[in-house]
């Protein structure tokens, strides 16, 4: 089923949460709604589910306007962040809720519940009440309940938020396969960029009352639309340094700790503009002293982060930068070191608006000529 939102506006009292949100999701697609808390992700999900109504705008499911359509008639499955299991029913009854609504036969219900429970590995706790379930089992029960009715549209509100790190990691690997097997249109809300990258066919980044960027995980990571998005995606966070591009004999350059860094000639239109240069920690590399273009840094500390090692260092101007490298590789761990930036992997943002500055096409052609 396709899902289409058009110019959705929602305010609670005078507090505008969503201001003109438009979105369309194709059949079978998994769209991740990503953003900090308070960005309106959950509200948007509830609008789609029909438990609250938009002030303005239309929601269409499979082309049908959903205004005035009750939640039970929308063909939706939803998993809540707080699980929202029925406390007085055991796991079986919880999972069977969408099936009893369809007036299915007892045997068929039992069979379906069994199947879904097996898939989610909770078939051994089916007769337990929610309060006897661990957090992970609750989360799986909630997910099973959302899946069992085989809804056309699946809304998952940060289902991994309240589970421990190990389970979250497992589920992050398991979920994409599970969601694909359902063939449902999925909207997945999360605050974790890794989850967003792992699960989304596309990601919609929400911030400040609306959607700021929609694209594939690669698009969002490689060309974030603004400073905020660049900061939200990536761990450790992107290094952001104030620069002003200037003309040099080799094209366009920025000065980093007194060292010129030549950037894409396409940035010529940004010359003289106050900018922020974004360099991902993995785009910085330690090099031997004397390498052309190398910038001296003072190493402060280093720490392992998953499969990476991150070094925190200070530039000559006392600005903090982070350099990441695969764990196990050699690098200086104290004193002065030299780093070089990968110019093909940098981002330029306008300092006042925070918007991304794209390298201009005309300038690139000019450079080629």
């Amino acid at each position, binding site marked *: 089923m396709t899902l289409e939102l058009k110019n959705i506006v929602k305010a609670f009292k005078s507090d505008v949460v969503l201001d003109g949100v438009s979105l369309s999701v194709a059949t079978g697609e998994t769209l991740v709604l990503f953003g900090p808390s308070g960005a309106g992700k959950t509200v948007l999900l509830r609008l789609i589910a029909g438990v609250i109504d938009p002030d303005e705008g239309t929601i269409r499911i499979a082309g049908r306007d959903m205004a005035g359509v009750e939640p039970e008639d929308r063909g939706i499955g939803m998993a809540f962040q707080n699980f929202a299991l029925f*406390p007085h029913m055991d796991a079986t009854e919880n999972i069977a809720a969408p099936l009893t609504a369809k007036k299915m036969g007892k045997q068929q219900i039992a069979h379906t519940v069994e199947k879904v429970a097996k898939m989610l590995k909770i078939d051994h706790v089916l007769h337990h009440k929610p309060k006897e379930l661990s957090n992970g089992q609750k989360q799986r029960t909630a997910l099973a309940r959302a899946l069992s009715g085989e809804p056309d549209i699946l809304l998952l509100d940060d289902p991994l938020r309240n589970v421990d790190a190990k389970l979250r990691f497992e589920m992050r690997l398991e979920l994409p396969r599970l969601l694909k097997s359902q063939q449902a249109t999925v909207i997945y809300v999360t605050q974790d960029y890794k989850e967003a990258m792992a699960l989304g066919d596309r990601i919609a980044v929400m911030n400040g009352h609306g959607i700021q960027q929609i694209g594939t995980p690669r698009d969002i990571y490689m060309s974030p639309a603004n400073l905020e998005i660049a900061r939200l995606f990536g761990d450790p966070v992107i290094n952001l340094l104030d620069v002003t591009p200037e003309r040099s004999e080799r094209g366009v350059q920025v000065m980093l700790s007194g060292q010129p860094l030549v950037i894409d000639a396409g940035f010529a239109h940004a010359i003289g503009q106050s900018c922020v240069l974004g360099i991902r920690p993995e785009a910085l590399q330690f090099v031997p002293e004397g390498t052309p273009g190398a910038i001296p840094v003072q190493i402060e500390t280093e720490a392992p982060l998953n499969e990476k090692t991150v070094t925190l260092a200070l530039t000559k101007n006392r600005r903090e930068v982070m350099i990441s490298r695969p764990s196990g590789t050699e690098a200086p761990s104290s004193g002065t070191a030299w780093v070089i930036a990968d110019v093909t992997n940098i981002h330029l943002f306008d300092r006042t608006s925070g918007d991304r500055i794209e390298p201009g096409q005309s300038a690139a052609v000019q450079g080629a000529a």
Partner: protein
Amino acid sequence: METVNPIERVLRGVAITLVILFFMFPILWIVLMSFQTNETILRMPPSVVFTPTIENYQALITGKLETSAGILEIAFMKNLFNSFFLSTASVAIGLVLGVPAAYAFARLKFKGSEDIAFTLLSFRFAPPLLVLLPLTIYFQQLGLANTYGGLIWVYQLIVLPLILWIVRGYFEDIPADVEYAYRIAGHSWGATFRKIALPLAGPGIAAAALLAFIFAWNNFVFALVLASADKQPVTVGALAFVTASGIQYGQIAAGIVLSIAPTFALALYAQRYLVEGLSLGAVKG
């Protein structure tokens, strides 16, 4: 687990014993009185040693009160039945009207909902005597005076606000998401009320019903004014023991024992519902 030191445990035991003595002594004394004759009750100094007699209960159940002035007819059993009938019917109607109303006040924020809810509560503020006088006149004109229907109606003044406000709180404590989840699963609004809201608020509804029953049972003034002998509950009927030839303490005590027994039993039975934790384990705070 915290460890309790022995002295603290002893002190706690003493304190609990004192409290139980304080509250249970009158009941114990009444029970003892109910097995004594007026003479043993009134002797000085009072004593707990006596030969028990069941003549008080006999008199109540047969309806024949033997006094020095002769045999007096009393309608205690009839009164007891009236109390039962009036309280049960009032609470039943109160639940039928109050529980859906409480749900509406808890879940639907419609215009003026707070005002209506408060108005209903305000019935409890007015002294009953204030409404009784006009009510008596209306009831006589409407032909409701001295009818069960009329009394049950007036009892709603006691029962309905109580049920409404207690149950509303319990409905509000149910996370809205749990109800949303059931509706999204494909169930109608009505089914959600029956299968989710009602069972989850069950202990609260039981508590409210029990309290309402006790309040209705203990009511005196409405029944005194609006009911005559054959519709009177025990609270009013007990006045019959104050006779021309003296106050029949033994029978009053027996009457009290019989009339508190049902509410006492009900409270004991419902205790587990009242105490049963309402912590909804399925939702993380």
